[in-house]
Each structure stands twice: as structure tokens, then as C-alpha cells.
């Protein structure tokens, strides 16, 4: 371990030994609004607010998150970002709510109910393979991109064909980095779904 590493480690240990509750409290104070927005995003996309107010539910979850985090301040590592640590608490709270919100126990195990493992990775890899600049002809790419809506086509072309990353795509389409990444992600899923549907139709037609 180099001298710099030792100094950093000593500093980390000293910091944690002195006042973990205060350190965590300060970290929560700095990031709480960002964490709250993250929780609200989770509540909104999951539909767990039902007919209630998303902000109200997010506030309740945030309250629980702060309680859980402050119950164990020594578990927080101040050398690491606090936001993902807090958001993980939120996912546990929301998992409990999701289970309670189910009207009857599911006949499927929790594992069975989850989307297929590796599904997201397979979608991304498929899009890369289908649209990679070296492997396609313009006609083939146009056929594939025709499977999706124009808005999806735009970001898929920029990201997979032209090779622009999220920040660059955002600049080109005039939106934020986060919004661009969300559009790319959803367009990737819709392309995979449309592609598999088209392949299935083609195979059915071949068998008849």
C-alpha cells in the first residue's frame, strides 16, 4: 500500500471513528433533494402511488429511508457516494410496498416474476449487432429502423449507427443527458420487441 493510500485509509478510519452520525447527516443534507427525486422516479414508474400523490408517497419512503439510514450510521462509508446507498434503502422499502400492494399472493415465486435475467443486456447487444456500422448495409438498417416509431429511430440511429454516447445524443436532440439515455434505453427495448415480433411473423410465414 503506497503512502498516499495509507494516508487516505487512515483518514477514512479516523473520519468514521469520530462522528459517523454527523457525517451521514451532512451527507444526507447535501443529497436529500436528489435522493427524493430518485425515489419519486421509482414511485412514478412503478405505479405504486396508485390514485395517491406521487410526491406524498415519495416523502413517506424518504422518511423511512432516513430512519433506516440513521439507525446504522456506522454502516455508511463516507469515502463512497451516499446517494446510491440511500436509494438502495428506498428499493427495499418499495419492494415491501409492492408485495403488500398485490391483491393476492402470486402463484409465482419472486424470482419467477422478475423479468428474464440478462434481458436488458441481450436487448442492448442485439441492437448493437443489428445496427453496428460495420455490419449493415444502409437498406438493412433502414428496414430495421422502420420497425420503430420516428422518435425512437432518431436516437437509435444516433447511438448505435453513428456511435454517439448519451451526452452527445442529448446535445444533438436538444435535451438533458438523463432524458437522452432514457429515450435510448426505451427505444432499444422497443426495437428488440419489434424485431422479435417481425422474426416470429417471418418464421410463421415460412412454415405455412
Amino acid at each position, binding site marked *: 500500500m503506497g503512502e498516499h493510500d495509507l494516508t487516505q485509509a487512515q483518514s477514512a478510519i479516523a473520519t468514521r471513528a469520530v462522528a459517523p*452520525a*454527523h457525517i451521514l*447527516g*451532512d451527507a444526507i*443534507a*447535501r443529497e*436529500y*433533494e*436528489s435522493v427524493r*427525486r*430518485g425515489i*419519486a*422516479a*421509482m414511485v*412514478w*414508474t*412503478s405505479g*405504486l402511488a*396508485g*390514485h395517491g400523490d406521487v*410526491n406524498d408517497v415519495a*416523502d*413517506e419512503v*424518504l*422518511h423511512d429511508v*432516513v*430512519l433506516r439510514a*440513521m*439507525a446504522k450510521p456506522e454502516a455508511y462509508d463516507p469515502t*463512497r*457516494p451516499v*446517494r*446510491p*446507498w440511500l*436509494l*438502495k434503502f428506498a*428499493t*427495499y422499502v418499495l*419492494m415491501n410496498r*409492492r408485495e*403488500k400492494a398485490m391483491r393476492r399472493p402470486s402463484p409465482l415465486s*419472486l424470482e419467477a416474476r*422478475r*423479468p428474464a435475467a440478462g434481458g436488458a*443486456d441481450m*436487448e*442492448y447487444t442485439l441492437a448493437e449487432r443489428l445496427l453496428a456500422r460495420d455490419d449493415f448495409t444502409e437498406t438493412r438498417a433502414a428496414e430495421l429502423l422502420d420497425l420503430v416509431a420516428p422518435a425512437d429511430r432518431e436516437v437509435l440511429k444516433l447511438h448505435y449507427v453513428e456511435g454517439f*454516447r*448519451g451526452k452527445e445524443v442529448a446535445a444533438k436532440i436538444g435535451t*438533458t*443527458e*438523463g*432524458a437522452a*439515455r*432514457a429515450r*435510448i*434505453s*426505451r427505444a*432499444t*427495448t422497443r426495437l428488440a420487441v419489434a424485431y422479435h415480433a417481425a422474426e416470429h411473423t417471418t418464421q410463421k410465414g415460412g412454415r405455412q
Partner: protein
Amino acid sequence: MTRPSSHNDRERGYELALHRYIKALDSADFETVAEVLTLAETDPELDRRIAAVNDAIYAEAGLTPREQQAQTVRKLLAQHIPSGMPQPEPEAPAPLTVGDVAAKLQADQATGRPTLLSDRDTNTRLLGNTTPLPDRMTEAAITRLATDLGAGGSERYWEEFRHAATRLGMARASGHARLAARHQRPTQAGTNRPRRGGTRWQSSDGEPDAEQ
């Protein structure tokens, strides 16, 4: 532009992680969300990108920020760190009671928010009850309260009770904080500095504000 392959691999790793995260959010797959957040705990750049996505989805949902929540979280933290945390509020509000929460649930029902028809009698019995609520509205504390009150009620009723109590507590704390802010003097050397939008902390001993 040719980028080094290690940079491309790292970028691709981020893109994959974000796709996984966004898809999991859209699917309410909190387990996968937690897995990606675990990666972000040791990767500040991934944390930053996830936060950008969260902000975008928040904007997409059309949600508006709540300025006073800074005060509410501050109060929550002060409950857990009693020493060394500033307590500028001049007077404590009256503690919330069981009857306050029962009244809130009744009001929610009147405004169309779904409540529990089968527990209406339980809620009616609790109206006007002056038992103070527990300091921490944990599930265990509410369960103990329900037992102590002997009022009956389904598990789901007490879950709704806890949620309503939390909302009431936060609303009251933020209202009290606004009152405290109005009572504070404008710029003064040393201690009190003017608050802006409820997002800055103050310390009573003149330390610099902790920025958000």
C-alpha cells in the same frame, strides 16, 4: 474519432448499466435497480449518470419540487443527532395525536382517496383520541400503539394509519419551519444568515452552511 478501446469498454459498461437500470425502473424490478445501485456505490460517475436519469424521469412525470422538504429532513436528522445539530425553532408544535390521524383518514375518505370501508368503525372510535403518536413512526411502533389502544382494525388500516401519520408529521414540521423562518432576523454577523428556498443549513455557532 477513434477512442482507446479501454475507454470504449468503460463507456459501454456504463451504457449497459444504465439500460438495465431504466428498464428495471419501468418494470418495477426493484431488485435489479438495487443491483445497479450497488455498482454505483463504488463508481461516482455511474452514480452521476443514474442521478441524471432520475432527474429526467422526475421531469417526465411532471412532478414539482417541494422546497420545504429540506426543513422536514433537517428536523428528522435532528431527532437522530440531538447533540451538535442546530435547533433554531422557537417553540415546538403540539404533538400529533391518534385523533389527528384518524381525522386525516376521515378527511381523505371524504375527498375520494380510497380508505378502508371495513375499518370505518375503528377509525370513528379513534377520532378525538388524545394519545400522542410515537416519536418514530416505524411499523413496530404503530403495532405497539394499536395493541395499547385496543381499538381493533385490520393490518391494512394500521398501515394506512402509519402513512397518514407520516404525511401529517412532515406537513406539520414543514409548516413550523416556515413559521420559524419568518421569525428569523435578516442578515446578522456571525450566526443567522438569511435562508433561501429552504435548501441551506444554518449552524448556531457560525460554521459555514453545508451546501446541497
